[in-house]
């Protein structure tokens, strides 16, 4: 069988562009992204290298890209998240955070952010975190006279912390696509997650000082209250300690650490009254999400294999690196592109579709493989740049969960509290959007925040 479009290897870049259009066309017409990518990749392979060789490459990808030990970390990480909801940790975390920091201006809102950051240590799911905290924290804030826009906004925004603080499925996926160390990426997300939470907290305090009626301080907690709140949050610290110390100290692989973390949360959930039915539901949900992610991975990899034959990423990289503009300006444009795309696409899908082209381009912009810090555009080695860019794009993808028109987190908050109109949630989000822009700027200009922990590991 000859080339389908009669172009073949005469102009691989043209074939690449045709198949990129095919991918987006199919995806827009409702073909699931994974299958659209598989179709576009397969068609492109047949065009470039013929049916037989194309088929033999494409045919091995679903198995080869799923039966990898490094990827076995995903199911335990996802399971921890689902089990954590059964373990009743959110209420206890919020109670503890309230007792410790409720006295600040806007203290309950700050406590919500800190509790969500803590919950992120057992959950990688933004929307689910926003949902549960809508029920736990919003009533408490409203009872204390908080402005409902602030109450709703903080819950929706705080949910996004889940994806940076380990365990995070999306960072594992990023690590896989760019062939970076899973452990390094997971560690790298930790400090940016904390910094984001602190920036959220600082913005709330400033806002509440300027508008004392919007977020009054809640006083009257004793040290006894504070200490009594601690045992309830111990399991969270245990899981965070297991995962971070295992990756950092190397006493277990991320998969094993995830498994142990899931086991600890399971035990807590059982003591909280979870029965077989709850466990089965959590496992079935985990299975669904696992299959969804893996299908996307192998579908996209078929397309990526083709893209590499087509030389599109290389051509795009050379073009981008050769632009006569400041590299930070180019990076800014790329991030802006992500912000726009993120308005219409799910975070994981967006990363998988865009990274095969943008990742090599940003690496080339930095100076390519083997570049030293001094020679590079961003003052980072290849490996450092790769981790740094990952954290920034994941943070970008998260910001899109709170921006109109389809900021899913905002709709989740409105779904739990139908009395708070979605427009009020979007209004309440505004100050957190400013906080996120500051956080991203901090990550861009102070890469040390991202690289401090992974550098220690080396």
């Amino acid at each position, binding site marked *: 069988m000859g080339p389908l479009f009669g172009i073949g290897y005469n102009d691989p870049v043209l074939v690449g562009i045709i198949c990129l259009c095919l991918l987006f066309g199919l995806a827009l017409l409702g073909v699931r992204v994974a299958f659209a990518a598989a*179709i576009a990749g397969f068609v492109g392979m047949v065009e470039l290298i013929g049916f037989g060789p194309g088929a033999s490459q494409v045919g091995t990808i679903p198995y080869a890209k799923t039966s990898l030990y490094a990827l076995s970390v995903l199911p335990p990480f996802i399971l921890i998240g689902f089990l954590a909801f059964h373990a009743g940790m959110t209420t206890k975390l919020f109670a503890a955070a309230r007792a410790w920091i409720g006295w600040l201006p806007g203290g309950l809102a700050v406590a919500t952010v800190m509790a969500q950051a803590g919950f992120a240590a057992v959950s990688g799911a933004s929307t689910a975190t926003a949902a549960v905290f809508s029920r736990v924290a919003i009533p408490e804030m409203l009872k204390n006279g908080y402005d409902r826009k602030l109450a709703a906004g903080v819950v929706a925004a705080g949910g996004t912390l889940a994806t940076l603080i380990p365990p995070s499925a999306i960072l594992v996926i990023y690590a896989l696509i760019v062939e970076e160390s899973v452990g390094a990426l997971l560690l790298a997300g930790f400090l940016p997650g904390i910094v984001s939470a602190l920036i959220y907290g600082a913005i709330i305090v400033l806002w509440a000082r300027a508008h004392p009626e919007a977020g009054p301080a809640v006083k009257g907690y004793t040290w006894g209250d504070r200490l009594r709140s601690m045992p309830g949050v111990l399991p969270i610290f245990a899981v965070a300690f297991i995962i971070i110390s295992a990756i950092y100290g190397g006493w277990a692989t991320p998969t094993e650490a995830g498994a142990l973390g899931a086991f600890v949360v399971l035990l807590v959930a059982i003591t909280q009254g979870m029965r077989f039915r709850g466990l089965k539901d959590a496992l079935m949900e985990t299975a*669904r999400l696992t299959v969804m992610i893996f299908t996307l991975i192998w579908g996209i990899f078929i397309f990526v294999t083709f893209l590499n034959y087509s030389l599109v990423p290389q051509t795009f990289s050379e073009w981008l690196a050769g632009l006569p503009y400041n590299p930070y300006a180019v990076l800014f444009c790329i991030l802006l592109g992500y912000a726009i795309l993120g308005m219409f*696409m799910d975070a994981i899908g967006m990363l998988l579709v865009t990274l095969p082209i943008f990742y090599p381009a940003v690496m080339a912009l930095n100076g390519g493989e083997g570049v030293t810090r001094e020679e590079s555009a961003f003052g980072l080695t290849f490996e450092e740049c790769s981790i740094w860019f990952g954290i920034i794009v994941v943070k970008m993808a998260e910001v899109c969960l709170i921006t109109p028109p389809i900021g899913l987190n905002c709709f*989740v908050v409105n779904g739990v509290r139908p009395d708070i109109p979605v427009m009020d949630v979007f209004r309440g989000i505004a100050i957190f959007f400013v906080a996120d822009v500051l956080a991203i700027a901090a990550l861009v200009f102070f890469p040390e925040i991202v690289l401090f922990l992974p550098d220690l590991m080396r």
Partner: protein
Amino acid sequence: MSGGSDHVLDHPPEDGLGRLVWRLDRILRWPEDALNFIAALAIMFLMLMGVVQIVAGLRWLFNAPIFGYIDAIELSMPILAILGIAYCQRMGVHIRMDILIQNFSGRLLWSVETFAATCTFVIMIFMCYFAWNFFNDAFVIGDSTTDAELPTWPSKILVPIAFGLLVLRAFVQILGASRLALNPKLAPVGVVVQKDIAEQAQEEIREAMAGEQREGPG
């Protein structure tokens, strides 16, 4: 966005094509649910294996990590990663961009859905065939893992099985969607009914709240 739900009617619809789709949908449900349940069990097993591996590997305790642990995990990955693929297609879990089609309704929507299901059907026939060849090669040459020398074919055969079921599921969706394209007023069977953003939010909430029902707020 990926929200969707499968539609279950207790009784077959009146029209002939509807009855056929309803029946085929029922036949496929059982193996799909079973395979996803096996995947769920495998996840439980993966968790327990990880814990055992850590305990058994403790230098001061047993210092005897499970032999072939990594090989076994790699071979079992297709169980958790691929077996449930048809189940996910039925439930509308696989993500898609609905920016354009969310504006469609009636005949146009179901025609586009028919097209999408047909695309999935065609590519998965190819993928199923390729995966079968891949398994067959491994079976014929007696391929095994490098460390523990476990045979790979029992793991590789799972891929064409799961893909085959997805081909059948996509076929049911073609029938279900084209039936609605012909007459959008009929009750939907054998198709994923797309949800809007507010309904997706409700879905997320239901999932997250399942475990939190017992607790009061605050």
